[in-house]
């Protein structure tokens, strides 16, 4: 992936082809999980690829993996779609409810789907509530306020759960 991004930075379209070949399916999967609808997921992936092409020269290999950088651009596009007030307003209540249910379920299932590795072990050590909150944020793209509402807890409690959970997770992973 690093060499594909380097090729994009040189203005070579084969680099972007390679990104799609390597991770196109995964990008669609991540977007589908966060947005639930195929049309929105396609839009997010499409936008993300154009951004990857434009920003490729800003990627610096020493600062993290190329794959992490690529996925971050996609997640950002997905968050923009979810949080743009007007963006989902054309959907009816049933469609919106389906998106909400799907996102929550997918976020929570992601824990079981994790390969046996440090992140899974460390997430497993957290209390269930902070673990769920972290998964809802990262995998489902939910904000502090939304997570507080989903878990029926005050916003302050939600923030401190997430903060404590992330601190414990970081200690466990280091």
């Amino acid at each position, binding site marked *: 992936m690093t060499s594909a991004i380097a090729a994009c930075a*040189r*203005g070579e379209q084969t680099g972007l082809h390679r990104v799609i070949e390597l991770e196109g399916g995964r990008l669609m999967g991540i977007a589908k999980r966060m947005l639930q609808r195929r049309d929105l997921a396609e839009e997010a992936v499409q936008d993300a690829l154009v951004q990857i092409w434009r920003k490729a020269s800003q990627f610096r290999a020493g600062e*993290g993996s190329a794959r*992490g950088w690529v996925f971050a651009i996609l997640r950002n596009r997905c968050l923009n779609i979810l949080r743009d007030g007007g963006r989902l307003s054309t959907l009816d209540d049933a469609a919106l409810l389906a998106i909400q249910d799907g996102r929550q379920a997918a976020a929570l299932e992601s824990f079981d789907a994790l390969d046996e590795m440090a992140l*899974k072990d460390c997430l497993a050590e957290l209390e269930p509530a902070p673990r769920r909150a972290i998964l809802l944020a990262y995998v489902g793209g939910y904000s502090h306020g939304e997570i507080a509402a989903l878990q029926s807890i005050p916003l302050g409690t939600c923030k401190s759960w997430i903060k404590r959970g992330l601190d414990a997770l970081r200690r466990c992973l280091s």
Partner: protein
Amino acid sequence: MSREQEAEAFVLGLMDDTEASRAEAALATDPEWARAVGQARDRFLPLDMTAVPAPVPADLWERIAPELQMAKPKAANLPSAPRLRRLLPASIAAAIALAVGIGIGSQTLRPEPVVIAVLMDDSGAARAVVEDYGSESARVRFVSDVAVPDGQQMQVWTLPSPERGPVSLGLLKEDRAEHLSPPELPTPADGQLYEITLEPLGGSPTGRPTGPILAKGFAARQNDI
């Protein structure tokens, strides 16, 4: 918050719009911050890998190809190419050329702006152009209509440095060309963030952006072009 905690809040999408824009802008200027973000991304990467791959649309390449033609990235080994042209689709570049052309035609002997920033909304559509002349003078022009709800007002901001934080350039009365008299600031730099937020009438009560971001963009230094 520690740098790691901030990086995680950014990576998990838990920052508000203003914080996130600031954090995003700092990636280009603060290598230590960029590394903290890169490492936080990699810590959570295994969760992305649990997404079940789905087929990409058959016409994916056809859909993105036109955008690639308009936005060819700068080759890493070339001397600094005009940033404005590199980052912007042709249609937006044309809008700026038009806007700049009108400005020059109607007001000869006007000083050249030090930087120009094209401010785009979430969808990437150009909304406004900020010309910052440095020396406490700037100008905003809108290139598409912006809806401002009753009881609110647009405020223009810039981020001279992450340490200093966002600084107000001024309030806008309506969505048309307007001169601003910002406070004394360092000479605007290439890549400096400019944004317009919706604030209560009279401007942000805190002196920092509090409302939603209508449009934002990064400055391009004009003596490079």
